């Protein structure tokens, strides 16, 4: 017994244009094209246009790669730039260390407790715990006003933000809120999935440098956190590591590039 065939969709027609129809769909698509000759003719034309475009652009990828785009060239230039600054930077650091050492010994300033990146995780966890159990007011501004929310939080944090689209991971935006973060401000975006599980993205201004992704787990709740382009990020949920990593990478990808926009102002 054969199961009824899935109806032909836009995806099947596009797959035809791209020459990527899976073998098990070929017969059904051919039959459908026979019954819909007009659409078949359009699809055939679009396939020709695709081939024409490929043919037209092919010579560009066949050109020799310019020397300035070699990885080795770029790495050498980076090393040189760093080497130029290194002696001066080291001198400043040694001077600053001496100064700080003096201050610390005199009890003027406390020694740093932990790296700023850990602070991002602490604050991300705290914000998660505070608002994730909130039923009446989980967010300050609802996802229905997403444009307003994003604009407002971007202005307060001083960087272009967006509420990343996590629908590919089953999470839908609920909304967000502004939060205090040390001397500055932070923002929280909250998402939930169909089962009502919540995920939060915490963003904090006033960081420096950049770090790799770090992972921390407290009970059932996990967070991936990192610093990039002056901002700390923490993605927190009661989810397993691989699921959370996928969502965190989506956040990272979608946030990347937004900040360079601000730098170019």
């Amino acid at each position: 017994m054969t199961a009824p065939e899935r109806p032909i969709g836009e995806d099947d027609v596009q797959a035809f244009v791209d020459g990527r129809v899976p073998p098990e769909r070929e017969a059904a698509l051919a039959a459908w094209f026979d019954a819909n000759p007009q659409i078949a003719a359009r699809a055939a034309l679009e396939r020709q246009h695709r081939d024409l475009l490929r043919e037209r652009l092919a010579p560009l990828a066949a050109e020799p790669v310019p020397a300035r785009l070699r990885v080795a060239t770029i790495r050498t230039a980076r090393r040189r730039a760093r080497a130029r600054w290194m002696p001066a930077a080291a001198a400043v650091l040694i001077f600053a260390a001496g100064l700080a050492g003096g201050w610390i010994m005199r009890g003027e300033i406390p020694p740093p407790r932990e790296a700023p990146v850990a602070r991002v995780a602490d604050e991300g966890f705290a914000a998660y715990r505070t608002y994730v159990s909130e039923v009446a007011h989980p967010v300050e501004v609802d996802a229905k006003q997403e444009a307003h929310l994003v604009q407002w939080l971007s202005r307060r944090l001083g960087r272009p933000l967006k509420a990343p689209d996590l629908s590919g991971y089953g999470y839908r935006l609920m909304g967000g809120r502004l939060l205090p973060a040390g001397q500055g401000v932070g923002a929280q975006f909250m998402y939930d999935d169909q089962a009502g599980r919540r995920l939060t993205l915490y963003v904090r201004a006033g960081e420096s440098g950049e770090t790799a992704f770090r992972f921390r787990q407290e009970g059932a709740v996990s967070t991936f956190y990192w610093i990039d382009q002056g901002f700390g990020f923490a993605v927190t949920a009661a989810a397993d590591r691989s699921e959370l990593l996928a969502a965190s990478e989506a956040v990272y990808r979608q946030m990347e590039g937004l900040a360079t926009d601000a730098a170019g102002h």
Partner: protein
Amino acid sequence: VPDIEACVEPHIPALRRFAWALIRNREEADDLVQDCLERAISRWQLRRSDGDVKAWLFTILRNLHISRWRRDRRRGPVLSLDEMGDPPASSSQPDQTLAAKDVLASLNELPEDQKSVILLIGVEDMSYQQAADILGVPVGTVMSRLSRGRERLRLRLESGRGPLLRRVK
């Protein structure tokens, strides 16, 4: 640790082609590729080690392109018409070349999001899922942009170079 050079360099020709098709200016396209590579090299440690390097590079390049495009739009146009040259014609039949010129010109008139999906999928051989990851949208959105973009391209090519009439349904 995989070697950056071995992982990244094979994708440079495709990145240059994609950048040119988006910008239509050789120098600026290569500047964009260079910025993309600098960024990729500085973030090599941040990337997921088993991730898809090609999709990652294209994501960086496109994000940089979008943020520049927004910035330039605020500043006003700076593109000179002389710079809008076409790539060297392939040695195919002359009448084909005319149609090919049209295909590039028509592509250039599409909105950026449709142009990007057509290029990523139709020219750079990305899967629908890879394109969705690069653009940060669901696969369904990629399919509908692809479908609409290709339809628009076809209508432009069918009707000559005239402005596309909005069809009322």
